[in-house]
C-alpha cells in the first residue's frame, strides 16, 4: 500500500494488513479493515479520520492494548537493551491522583527498577522542560488540566521508549491550552526526534505537527490517503499562518470532508 520506506531501511513500526473485528449482538463489526502503515525511525505520523473510524483502536493495537483480528504489527527494537518499545499518552488525564507530579513522571522508570535518585533526576529534567519544575511536589488535584496532560506527556518521554503513541492527547483541553501544548510538543519533538504515532481529529493539529498525515475512512477504518507535509522545521504556531500550511490543509480537508459527509449519510 503506502509503505514509503527507502530500500534496505527497516521501518520502526510495521503494521501490515491490520484488521480489528468486534463481535456484537448485531453480528461482526469491522472497526479497522486491512490497514497498513510503516513509520520510519524519527518520523512523526498523524492519523486523522471521522470520529468512530477506528483510529484509536489502531493505536491501541500498536500499544498491545487491543487484540489484532488479522494482520501483524511490529516495532523494531533499538540498540539499547531494556529500553521499552512504546509509551502511550491517553486522551483522558491518566495520571495517578495519589502520586505527586514528580512521582507520576517517574512512574515508568520506577516500574523498570531504576534507582530513586536517578529516576527523580530524569523526572526533574523533564518537568523543567515543560515549565512544571515548581509543581513537582503537588498532587494532581492541585493542578490544571493542561498541566496534567503535560505530566502524562513527559511521563511517556521520561520512559524513553522506542516509539511514542499518542491518542488524541490534547483532545480534552480548551482551545488556548491546546495551542500552547502544540507548541511545546513541536519544540520537544524537534529536539528529541522520537518516532511518534499521533491520533487526532484536528486537521490543523495534524498538519502542524506531522511529517505525514494519514487519512482513514469512516467505519470500517481503511486507508484513504496519505499526505506528506513538507513544511520546513523548526515549526511553530506561526507556521499555521503560512500559505503552504493553508494549501496543505485545504487539500487534505477536501478529501476528509467528503469522507465525513459520507459517514454522516451512512449513519442516517
Amino acid at each position, binding site marked *: 500500500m503506502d509503505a514509503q520506506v527507502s530500500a534496505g531501511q527497516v521501518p520502526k513500526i510495521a503494521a501490515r494488513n491490520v484488521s480489528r473485528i468486534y463481535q456484537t449482538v448485531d453480528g461482526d463489526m469491522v472497526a479497522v479493515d486491512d490497514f497498513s502503515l510503516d513509520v520510519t525511525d524519527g518520523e512523526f505520523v498523524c492519523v486523522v479520520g471521522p470520529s468512530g473510524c477506528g483510529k484509536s483502536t489502531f493505536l491501541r493495537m500498536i*500499544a*498491545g*492494548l487491543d487484540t489484532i483480528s488479522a494482520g501483524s504489527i511490529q516495532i523494531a527494537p533499538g540498540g539499547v537493551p531494556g529500553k*521499552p518499545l*512504546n*509509551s*502511550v499518552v*491517553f486522551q*483522558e488525564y*491518566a495520571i*495517578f*491522583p*495519589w*502520586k*505527586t507530579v514528580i512521582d507520576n513522571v517517574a*512512574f*515508568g522508570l520506577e*516500574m523498570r527498577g531504576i534507582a530513586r535518585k536517578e529516576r527523580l533526576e530524569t523526572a526533574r529534567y523533564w518537568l523543567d522542560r515543560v515549565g512544571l519544575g515548581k509543581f513537582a511536589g503537588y*498532587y*494532581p*488535584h492541585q493542578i490544571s488540566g493542561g498541566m496534567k496532560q503535560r505530566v502524562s506527556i513527559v511521563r511517556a518521554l521520561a*520512559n524513553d521508549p522506542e516509539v511514542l503513541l499518542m491518542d488524541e492527547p490534547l483532545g480534552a483541553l480548551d482551545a488556548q491550552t491546546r495551542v500552547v501544548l502544540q507548541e511545546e510538543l513541536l519544540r520537544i519533538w524537534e529536539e528529541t526526534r522520537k518516532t511518534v504515532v499521533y491520533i487526532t481529529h484536528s486537521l490543523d493539529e495534524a498538519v502542524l505537527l506531522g511529517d505525514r498525515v494519514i487519512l482513514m475512512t469512516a467505519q470500517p477504518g481503511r486507508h484513504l490517503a496519505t499526505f506528506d507535509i513538507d513544511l520546513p522545521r523548526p515549526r511553530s504556531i506561526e507556521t499555521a499562518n503560512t500559505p503552504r500550511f493553508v494549501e496543505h490543509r485545504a487539500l487534505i480537508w477536501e478529501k476528509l470532508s467528503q469522507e465525513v459527509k459520507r459517514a454522516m449519510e451512512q449513519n442516517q
Partner: protein
Amino acid sequence: MRATPETIVPFRAKGFAPRSNPVMGAASIAALVGLWQLGSSLGWISPVFLPAPHEVAGAIYRMAVSGELWRHLSVSLWRIVLGWTLGTVVGVAAGFAMGLFTLARSPMQAFVGILFPVPKIALVPLFIIWFGIDEGSKIATIAIGVFFPTVISTAAGVEAVQKNLIRLGQSFNLSRWSIITKIILPGALPSILAGFRITLSVSILLLVAAEMIGAQEGLGAYIIRAGDLFQTDSLIGGVVILAALGLLFVGLLGLAERRLLRWR
C-alpha cells in the same frame, strides 16, 4: 434604563451550604450533660430512672480504682481487635477477588446478597454451638459482622478504579500483581477506609451482643449484670466507656485517613 428596585436582580444564591464547627459539636454535648445534671440536682429526674452525671462519673471512677474497668476493657478490646482484624483481612481479600475475577464475582455477590442483611445477633446462639461458648463464638460474631461490609466497600472501591489507569499500567508492562498493588490498591483505599468507619462501629455493636450471652468478663457482660441489679449508674458508666471506645476508633481512623489519603 435607570437603576430602580424593579430593575436590579437581588442576590438569590443564598443558603444550602452548611458548615462544620467542632466547637459547636462539643458545646452541644456539654450543654446536654449540663441540663441532665441540672435536672437531677433539682430532683426532676429520678436517680433510679436516670442517675445524675456525677453519679455515673463516680461509678466509672470506682470501676477504675477497683481494677474492674481494665479487666473488662482489656477483654473486650482483645475480642474486638482479633475479630475486627480477622473479618477485615478476609473481607478485603474477598472484596478484591470479587472486584477482579469473573470466577469469584457472581458467586460472591449471591453469597453477600443473601447473608449481609441477616442480623448477626440472631446467629450468636448458632456460633456458640459452632465455635464454643468461650472466645471462639465472640470473635466469630464480630469477624463475620465485619466481613460483609468490608467485602462490599472493597469490591466497590476496586471497581471504581479508573480503567485508563489500569490500561496505563499495562502500557508500562506492569505485571498483574504490580497492577493490583500499585494501582488498584491505592485507588480502592478511600472506599476501603470508608468501610472501616462502618465496621469499627459494627464491631462494638456485636461485641456487646456477643458478651450478653455466656460471658463473665467484658463491657457487654458488665452492662448486662448492672442492669440485672438495677445499678443504672454502673450501666450508664459502661455505655459511656463504649461511646468513648467508639470515639477513639473514629479518631484513630481519622489519623490513618489523613496519613494514607493525603493526596485528596
